[in-house]
């Protein structure tokens, strides 16, 4: 399926958000995810079914002031 991941179009075989993170080798308790502008909690990723062209944001901590 085609998704927009962090602003870039990508083709990934994934049914759920957890599948997608796993397929792309995203791993770590420091990651936060949102789909179509809504936060998806860590514990909800496995049950969160994705649709074609969903906009997925995957964020992590970064230096900031």
């Amino acid at each position, binding site marked *: 399926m085609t998704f927009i991941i*962090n*602003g870039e179009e990508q083709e990934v075989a994934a049914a759920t958000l957890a599948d997608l993170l796993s397929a*792309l*080798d*995203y*791993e*770590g*308790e*420091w*990651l*936060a*995810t*949102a789909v179509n*502008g*809504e*936060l998806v*909690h*860590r514990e909800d990723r496995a049950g969160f079914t994705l649709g074609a062209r969903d906009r997925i*944001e*995957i*964020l*992590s*901590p*970064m*230096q*900031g*002031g």
Partner: protein
Amino acid sequence: MLKLYDKEVRSRLLLGTARYPSPAILAEAVRRAKAEIVTVSLRRETAGGKAGGAFFELIHALGVHVLPNTAGCHSVQEAVLTAKMAREVFRTDWIKLEVIGHHDTLQPDVFGLVEAARILTGEGFQVFPYTTDDLVVAEKLIEAGCRVLMPWCAPIGSAMGPVNPMALRTFRAHFPDVPLIVDAGIGRPSHAAGVMELGYDAVLLNTAVAGAGDPAAMAEAFALAIDAGRLAHAAVPLEPRDMAVPSTPVIGKAVFS
């Protein structure tokens, strides 16, 4: 002790974590500043999550309170979502709320700021709003549920120091019981001492430390200046006078002619 929502800290210096020459120098600056609160951001992670993970570990190892921010957000929607994602990562209700309204000056969009603050406090966040020195905006932020205010003293990263001391003085007088943190625009320790002399509760800095020739030494210099300014405020400084006043008593002065 300085009480900020549910936490009490001894240090009056909050440090940003960006632009240091290396992670080791950042860690040393935090140590020498004796900082207990650092600000961090969230950004898009590349596959694998390695960069964010390393930084996450570094911040945890510092043993400080984390104040996540919404730096770079230009809309209410962006800021609110970033705040929620930050809470997911850092497991804190604290958020340094920035809603930027102008690209060149990084001036806050105060209308968006108030709206975002209202939404976030409604969802249990403890909001530290980056705002201007405008009293009416500040009152709206208090109404929105903010219990800390963070006025700028000059544009972010400008190092100009307080460009409008009278506004800062008025702001302090208007909110005697609200913890006030000067956020943005400080360039030198003397600027920090100056705002602490005005009675501010703390200072939030990043570039002035990270961009110094020796960031760790500058962090310590700021900590000392902040302590000095706070002590001076408590000691009630002399007000400026128009005329000279001799410090040596005139009575008993010898007359030689």
